[in-house]
């Protein structure tokens, strides 16, 4: 059997092989990293550490796959931070617990993203231009809101979750169930619902999708709502994990979603794999890389970013070789 027949999507084993190629490649890379680090990465603790640090970026990556599918919208980064802070306030000030944290964060993120999307569609401006402008506005709101909230506290303390607030969600098995739940629901939506296929069509070619009778505007709004809800979940999860999410200005919020974005970019090289699974796998690979570099003593910050950038470039070059036109 030749290689082409092995990945032929008309056979069940071909489809299975398509889903397994990249997990196997990543597994081989992790095994090599494990050998280099003297077996530390594939210990139970090492694996859990990689998995836990991949959850947030996987959810952000999946959120971006929806909110950016019709163009890059930087507003989502600022919306993520602002929404997480609203969730924290709802928990701390109103005592709403998980409901406040997740509900506040999700609702705020959806409202902010729908406003941004509505403006984009209404004004017919390029998404990246309007997204940057809205990002600056949302960041300013985030900083102002955060300062205002701080002033309300005794001694001007930062608003943050208490040491025991909403911690259950970041412990095993709740974190695993959240990750699994998001993946299962998104796979169902993307592969098994009319909306999911319509959204993939609109993301790929809006004009043709409209010619096929798809209501692109409605589809975009639903897609952005799903993406924003995921971003809200990510914001709440991050807040529960770190107790607070720092507000930033001057497009600094973008840095907070950078690894999630990297996971989404990396997944674009895994075209034969299910898109949702490929984002989860990419996020795992990025976390593994960071854990590996940490074990090697590479300093946090610039060098980590350097290796992440290099990893994405090399991986995408190799993964998309077969898709490139022969020259």
């Amino acid at each position: 059997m030749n290689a082409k027949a092995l990945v032929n999507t008309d056979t069940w084993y071909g489809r299975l092989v398509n889903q397994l190629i990249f997990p196997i490649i990543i597994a081989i890379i992790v095994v090599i990293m494990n050998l280099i680090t003297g077996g530390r990465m594939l210990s139970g603790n090492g694996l859990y550490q990689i998995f836990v640090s991949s959850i947030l970026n996987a959810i952000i990556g999946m959120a971006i796959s929806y909110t950016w599918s019709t163009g890059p919208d930087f507003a989502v980064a600022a919306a993520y931070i602002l929404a997480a802070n609203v969730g924290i306030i709802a928990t701390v000030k109103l005592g709403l617990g998980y409901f406040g944290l997740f509900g506040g964060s999700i609702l705020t993120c959806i409202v902010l993203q729908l406003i941004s999307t509505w403006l984009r569609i209404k004004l017919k401006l390029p998404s990246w231009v309007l997204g940057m402008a809205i990002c600056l506005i949302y960041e300013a709101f985030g900083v102002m809101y955060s300062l205002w909230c701080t002033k309300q506290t005794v001694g001007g303390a930062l608003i943050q979750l208490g040491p025991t607030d909403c911690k259950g969600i970041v412990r095993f098995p709740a974190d695993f169930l959240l990750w699994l739940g998001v993946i299962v629901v998104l796979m169902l939506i993307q592969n098994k619902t009319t909306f999911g296929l319509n959204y993939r069509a609109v993301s790929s070619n809006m004009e043709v999708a409209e010619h096929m009778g798809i209501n692109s505007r409605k589809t975009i709004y639903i897609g952005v709502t799903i993406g924003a809800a995921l971003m809200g979940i990510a914001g709440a999860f991050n807040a529960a994990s770190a107790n607070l999410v720092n507000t930033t200005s001057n497009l600094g919020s973008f840095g907070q979603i950078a690894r999630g974005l990297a996971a989404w970019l990396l997944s674009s090289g895994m075209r034969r794999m299910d898109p949702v699974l490929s984002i989860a796998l990419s996020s795992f690979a990025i976390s593994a890389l960071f854990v590996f570099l940490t074990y090697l003593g590479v300093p946090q910050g610039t060098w980590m970013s350097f290796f992440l950038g290099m990893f994405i470039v090399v991986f995408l070059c190799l993964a998309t070789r077969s898709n490139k036109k022969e020259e």
Partner: protein
Amino acid sequence: MSEKEILFEARGIYKSFGPTRANQDVNITLRAGEIHALAGENGSGKSTLISILCGMQKPDAGEMFVKGQPYAPKSPLDAYANNIGFVVQELGIINDLPVAYNIYLGNLDRYKQGPVLNTTSIFRDAKAELEKHGFDVPVREMAGNLPVEKRKLTEITKAMTVDPDILILDETTQALSYDTRQKLYQIINEEKEKGTAILFVTHDVEEMCELADVVTVLRDGRLAADLSGDDVNVDNVRQKMVGRKVEGNYYRDNMEASALPEVAIEVRDLSHGKAFRGVTFDVHYGEIVGICGLSDAGIHELGKTICGILKASTGTVYLPRTNAFIKNPKAAVNNGMAYVPKDRDSEALMMKTTIHYNELVPSLTELSNAAGMIMPKDASNLSDTAAIDFNVRCLGTNQAIGALSGGNKQKVSISRWLVKQNLDILVMDCPTRGVDVGVKAYIYSLIKQLKEKGVALILVADEMGEAIGMADRIVVLKDGKLNGILNRHPGLDEHEVIEVMI
């Protein structure tokens, strides 16, 4: 006029885009079991009318009826609901979805089981539907990974899934090779037998007259003629399309081969991957060599490899006059060779800029002065001259190239090479694809002039008539191998070419 049942009627259709009146008081009637062709030059309003029929655009005025009932589609879904199946002119396919989903997209509700879709049924039905028409297209493959022809077959299958009472095909055959075209003709004839009304648009007037029972001709957005019976003939249709008498044959007048003795290109044992293998032939100056073959024969890849756009796996392309081997496009251009691609929008033209820049790009080296600067006046002169000399209908060379009709875009795609001083060899891939009869005649006259001037021409042709009508020799490929070379002679016809092809 026929007494067959009227399935569709449009009366007094008007549609304008700004100052452009695309359709003015257009009437059309489609009857059961009748093949109805819509003819007209580029920009005559055919595609606008079809987009209105399919629900992609709303008319400014006018009314439509399907089986006597008022029909005012708000979207293509309304067309599907009225059993109108259609294939649009440009590729109407979602590249990032599998073929099966493309076939049923917009009409997926029938596969719903509760909130989710039964995707197994979608793949099974799509496979069965493709097999029913004899199309070999993998249903689970992403549509974007497939060649243009298979994507077009996916669109045709999609149109057939609505079990159409009315089937609309807008310039569908131009993307198809000879053998696949025969399959489409078979489908059209079967649908005719079943009582379907077929409306189709093609720029190939011969094909139109071969198939159509009735021809509606549009000119400048208005109804120019309704032809049926003996009135449906090539000369008559052409005359009604352009509004004047067009001489019968726009190909070469004689069937004698001629060429200068000097060899322009030596192609030796040329291969490109699995597309084609071991092809060897020469082209002389003042000679037109046609390249023909069935789908997947590798004819388009051969054209690209000769010009260095695709890398040769084995073999050489040698130009004796300049003693040069062509290994990349730069070497080709530097040695007086040019290539006009088949897909002008994605491969030939820079669609986001103006006519001026498109005309200019191949001549930048010639326009540069000693300091490497290009004087704006020289640049404008060149693009203006090209546009005027080659009759590009435009508001000026600063007009966006995307605003031109297909025929005028093609004139830009060709003329920018012809204004170069050192053009010795021109390779053209289906140069008359999707252009109207007037532009077609113009392009053939240009080819004849170039031959007279001694330019060596390679004409990659999906239409056999084009190769037979224009070429001195026809290189025929089969399954990627050279299957024969036919010389031009008075008795040369399609049967002779098909024999070598098959």
